[in-house]
């Protein structure tokens, strides 16, 4: 594995309860993500997957433990850790172009350069011709493609994806997974991808972390030695199936124990 780009060390996240006992969402969790790696995290619902990403994004702070990006401690949100959410988070008052340029504008990049960068990423996600459309004119899949372009235009160190295709229909979701891999082939961004979809986790990931039911811990780390570039057909072949059976049995144990 390449040198760790992102390190989570002994992360514990306890939500103070309004009454009764506090909730431990994540319990002494450690993991690392290598440079240019795609790491998927799957787990039963409520296991703290999303909390984990929000911690890495710096949107919330862990109760204890530390998160290191390139050896530097994460203290708050920043453009070096761009996030794509499950909900549609395009800014409705900005066009596709305006959304993709948002981060660049904040950093004071000049208009010429902004336009050139935005053009490159709009092309990359296949939305040429929609530059001047407002989000309300786009389909769910298109909105998520813009959200990916918007984050990539910022050239982040790590791409955090919180079930970004979870709200899309099955066919669009499959296409988006392929698109994400195509984008990765061209940008080689480090990606931390959270999902409850086992196929998605394996198809995208170099490794899959399976989480336990609450409190969330890493139950097991499963390598995915499928060759890249991958196309969706890989999901029907035996090596994929073998990994899927393994993940499935682990998840089943967790769902069973949660009940």
């Amino acid at each position: 594995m390449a040198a760790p780009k992102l390190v989570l060390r002994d992360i514990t996240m306890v939500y103070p309860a309004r009454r009764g006992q506090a909730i431990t969402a994540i319990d002494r969790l450690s993991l690392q993500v290598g440079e240019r790696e795609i790491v998927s995290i799957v787990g039963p619902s409520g296991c703290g997957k999303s909390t984990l990403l929000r911690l890495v994004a710096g949107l919330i702070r862990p109760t204890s433990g530390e998160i290191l990006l390139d050896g530097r401690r994460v203290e708050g949100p920043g453009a070096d850790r761009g996030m794509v959410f499950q909900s549609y988070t395009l800014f409705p008052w900005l066009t596709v172009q305006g959304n993709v340029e948002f981060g660049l504008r904040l950093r004071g990049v000049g208009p010429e350069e902004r336009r050139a960068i935005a053009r490159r990423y709009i092309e990359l996600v296949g939305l040429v011709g929609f530059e001047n459309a407002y989000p309300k004119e786009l389909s769910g899949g298109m909105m998520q493609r813009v959200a990916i372009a918007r984050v990539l235009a910022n050239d982040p160190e790590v791409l955090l994806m919180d079930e970004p295709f979870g709200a899309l229909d099955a066919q669009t979701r499959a296409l988006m997974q392929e698109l994400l891999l195509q984008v990765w082939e061209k940008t080689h961004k480090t990606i931390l991808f959270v999902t409850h979809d086992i196929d998605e986790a394996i198809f995208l990931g170099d490794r899959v972390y399976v989480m336990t039911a609450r409190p969330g811990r890493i139950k097991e780390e499963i390598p995915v030695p499928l060759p890249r570039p991958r196309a969706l057909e890989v999901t029907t072949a035996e090596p994929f199936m073998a990994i899927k059976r393994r993940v499935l049995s682990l998840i089943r144990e967790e769902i069973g124990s949660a009940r």
Partner: protein
Amino acid sequence: MQGGRPGAGRRFLKGVGEYFQPQEAIPGSLYRTIMLTGGLGAVVLWCILTYGGFVSPLFLPSPTDILRTGVELYRDGSLIAHTRASTFVIFSGWALAAVLAVPLGILMGSFKVVEALIEPVVDFVRYLPVSALIPLLILYIGIGTAEKIAVIFIGTFFQLILLVADVSAHVSKDLLDAAYTLGASRSHVITRILIPATLPGVMDNLRITMGWAWTYLVVAELVAADRGLGYLILDSMRGLFTDRIFVGLMVIGLLGLATDQFFKWLHRVLLPWSPKV
């Protein structure tokens, strides 16, 4: 009806029944026809009641009576003067409320500190009938135009502040978080995300409270007024000039309708991206 073939009556009922499916759309042409029938029906009923002599003009003047009186009041200049006076009071009171309530509402909806500070006061004052505050208003600011503007202000300010607070409290947290992960600072998030995100809701509520402002008009012109549409209505009551009362009501209704349409147009023009357009 006998078994076997359903009778014409039952078929008719079944056909009509289809249009009473809860929340189902009906054909656009049918909708327009029914709408026209409703509007025309009211006018026709009005004509029958008045021209047919079923109701005394003292209670309900005929359309021509009202039109004649309206033209009369327009010719002698008083209708314009009344309308102008009322419009000034309404727009001033409402604008003053808007200028203060919109920023305060956004602060209240976004920051728990502000919410805790002003919500109890707002909730208390909100339930006080505006008319009950008139004696105090007279005591504090007299009986001039300022008092009338104050009535409109109080009638709209406390409602608007809560409506706007609700709008800003419902701005998606993910939208703010997305901005943070794109490198936005807290002040960026407030100025570039929170405020634009509230605009469609704010516009909607400005339109709604403008409507409420019109409903406070008579209350505003209750005390020591010498012009205004509310005054026209109150003054006409003394001489039982029902036709004048109706002229006043018609003008208020039409101005309200026009303002509403204007706000909807403004929403489309200013916020073409709004999901509500």
